[in-house]
């Protein structure tokens, strides 16, 4: 099914299809957020951000990945005006967040980590309120489209208190999108959410991606970054360890495994293969070979040739890339040493 979310810029220009095409072509050279030398030291002396510099391209989805307390929320808060940075320059759409706060902020939509809603208000009222707060003229047609795209339309007259947790999160997103921002911040969109809701949130983000809105999300679930992001910034103890395309990151740190499922039990490993780094499963029907994707010669061809030579028949082959979790751990380990 085609995504139904129609997204228009503040000027009212429809950018639905163009945005999709742009995205497909990966035409994302325009910088929309530029952060330089951002520092934040809290009054109790805790240094939450240390000289953070980061550029975010228009239309991309960037995941800020890091453990709890890494500074993800402080970073988002500094850009959105919730936290006053100690030093550094942040520009959104070319506007400085302090000198040109109005223009910068009107481009931003924020969905904080905690659900915070006026519980006795209706969905419709609260989303309309947010739009007004951001200085946009009422546009009921747009809000209708927005609520429909987030599957909230039939709940529009419900009070917030009557909604489920997942629906409340959608309302938070609807509020953040009510003024048609160019950048959307999702702070831990799936924290404390069950598996079904998490999948649901991924779908919402996927829909948003197609509208061309730039998304910066924070997560400590590697799976989530892997699922949604184009680029990943790994943040730890207030420092950005690295920023890289997701694929590149996976490749750089990625190890891959190939599983060869055999038709019959292999009682004896062929002598030529005894030296190589192979694992035979307990039922003796699967051979696992681990290799580095980046190495020049992976050795798969010779492995299979050797097996064929020894009359070992392969029923099936599957491969598995290491997850970001493993990448992340090895990265953090690397930094420590």
């Amino acid at each position, binding site marked *: 099914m085609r995504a139904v979310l129609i997204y228009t810029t503040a000027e009212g220009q429809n950018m639905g299809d163009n945005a999709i095409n742009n995205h497909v072509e990966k035409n994302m050279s325009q910088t929309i957020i530029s952060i330089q030398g951002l520092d934040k030291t809290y009054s109790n002396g805790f240094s939450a951000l240390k000289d953070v510099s980061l550029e975010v391209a228009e239309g991309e989805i960037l995941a800020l990945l890091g453990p709890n307390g890494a500074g993800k929320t402080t970073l988002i808060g500094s850009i959105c005006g919730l936290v006053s940075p100690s030093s550094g320059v942040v520009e959104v759409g070319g506007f400085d967040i302090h000198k040109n706060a109005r223009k910068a902020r009107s481009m931003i939509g924020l969905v904080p980590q905690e659900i915070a809603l006026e519980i006795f208000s209706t969905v419709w009222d609260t989303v309309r309120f947010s739009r007004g707060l951001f*200085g946009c003229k009422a546009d009921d047609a747009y809000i209708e489209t927005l609520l429909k795209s987030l599957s909230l339309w039939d709940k529009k007259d419900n009070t917030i208190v009557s909604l489920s947790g997942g629906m409340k999160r959608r309302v938070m997103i609807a509020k953040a999108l009510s003024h048609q921002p160019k950048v959307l911040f999702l702070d831990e969109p799936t924290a404390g959410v069950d598996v079904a809701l998490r999948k649901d949130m991924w779908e919402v983000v996927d829909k948003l991606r197609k509208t061309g809105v730039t998304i910066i999300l924070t997560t400590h679930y590697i799976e989530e970054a892997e699922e949604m992001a184009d680029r990943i910034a790994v943040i730890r103890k207030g420092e950005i360890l690295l920023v890289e395309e997701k694929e590149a990151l996976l490749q750089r740190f990625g190890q891959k495994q190939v599983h060869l499922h055999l038709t019959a039990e292999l009682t004896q490993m062929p002598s030529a293969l005894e030296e190589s780094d192979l694992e035979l499963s307990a039922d003796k029907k699967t051979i696992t070979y681990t290799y580095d994707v980046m190495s020049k010669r992976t050795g798969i061809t010779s492995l299979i040739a050797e097996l064929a030579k020894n009359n070992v028949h392969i029923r099936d082959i599957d491969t598995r890339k290491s997850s970001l979790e493993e990448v992340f751990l090895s990265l953090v380990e690397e930094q420590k040493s």
Partner: protein
Amino acid sequence: MNKTAIKAIYRSEMKRFFRTIAQSMFSPVLSTVLYFVVFGAAIGSRIESVEGIAYGAFIVPGLVMLAVLQQSISNAAFGIYFPKFTGTIYELFSAPINFVEIIIGYVGAAATKSLIVAAVILITATFFVDIKIAHPLWAFAFLVLTALSFSLLGFIIGIWAKNFEQLQIIPMLVVTPLVFLGGAFYSANMLPGIWQIVVKFNPVLYLISGFRWSFFNVADVPVMISLIAISLFLFICIAIIGWIFKTGWRLRE
């Protein structure tokens, strides 16, 4: 000036008021009726008149002021404390609005609410006593100035308060005594010697005196002094709020 944002805040605050209109109105009207029964009928019947005015009518301006003070403070304090408490204040900070606009929205709504309550109380009072307002424009001006300045005070309390107890404590511990010692139910001239001087330090005296003057042409202090006092109070509240927003006190890390 982000007028759309001011309107959005104002409308959403008023909407909450009308959503709970019964509670919003019932309590001030009930307490006014009780005051009339106790002070107007039961005790008032033994007091012939104060400064030539029937006691029942004499207490009306004081009762209205009492309600306006309490309503302004609690509406505004609650109005800004609630987003702090529920966390929805993040939206105010991330929106393209400045503090002046936030204040106009919240304080404007709080003042409007207390003016509505004042009107309802005045109407209620007409069921008990005959009221003629000698200077309606002055009365209105005093009401608006009082509603605005005490809504500002309420706003400050709402920002200052870290919990619901603190939110209640100023209205309970400070405002109610000030109103009772501010001549809501008597003329300051009726107090014994030293107290006449003490009450001159009570800002609420000037409000009630000025407001009462606009009803009956009778005042404890000259009306211009009342006007200067309330304006001064308004100015002090604005100055404090200006400082709060400049420093981000209790609002922003």
